[in-house]
């Protein structure tokens, strides 16, 4: 596992039913592309997050397949519909098999 991986997500605390809200996510990760070389000229092996998903109460909002061209500390902004109160689940899948998860509840109000 890459060191110091920390997901951060920004979700409004409440929304009206059926409202479209903007979600912002950021995860600290070096996203080593496999193209860089270290000081002695050896290629640094690739180590990236290759997939990111967001679900609301088990239903998909977005599913992103990521390649090495995504910047360090991958950031995503997108929009979701909130049909009812519930929980957003954000999942990041690392090349090394690690899975990072974050959940955020949202109320209707």
């Amino acid at each position, binding site marked *: 596992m890459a060191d110091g991986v920390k997901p951060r997500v920004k979700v409004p605390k409440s929304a009206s039913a059926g409202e479209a809200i903007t979600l912002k996510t950021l995860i600290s990760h070096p996203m080593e592309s496999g*193209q860089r070389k270290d000081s002695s000229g050896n290629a640094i092996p690739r180590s990236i997050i290759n997939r990111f998903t967001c679900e609301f109460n088990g239903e998909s909002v*977005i599913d992103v397949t990521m390649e090495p061209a*995504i910047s360090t500390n991958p950031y995503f902004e997108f929009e979701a519909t909130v049909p009812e109160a519930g929980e957003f689940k954000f999942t990041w899948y690392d090349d090394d098999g690690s899975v990072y998860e974050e959940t955020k509840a949202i109320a209707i109000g």
Partner: protein
Amino acid sequence: MEFTRRETLAVGGAAALVAMLPKGAYAATTEEWIAEFTGGADMADAGIDLTAPEIAENGNTVPIEVSAEGASEILVLATGNPTPGVATFKFGPLAASQYASTRIRLAGTQDVVAIAKLADGSFAKASKTVKVTIGGCGG
């Protein structure tokens, strides 16, 4: 096996040709990505928006936005990178709009291409040239 002067030149020439190939190979790969995504279907010019800066000072983190109303998937490619793939966004039933914003790496000045698979199964393509002052592939 002994080389005559003529043979040596021929071998050297062939080696130089091979060394020059990768540039062409990148283009083929971009086309392969597109062919795999669209299955060789034609792409319309309308129906997708790609927002990227005209000039990016730092190729390590270039903000881009894609949106295509009703699209089920959007593929983003950086045609001038060592590997052209950037990301594929698949929108689920709860996506309020087919919009996404992220930050990408660009190795140098190049075209960024976005292709959307629209609701009716057709494809739309948008392309934007981004000038990069400092490349984002490390050294």
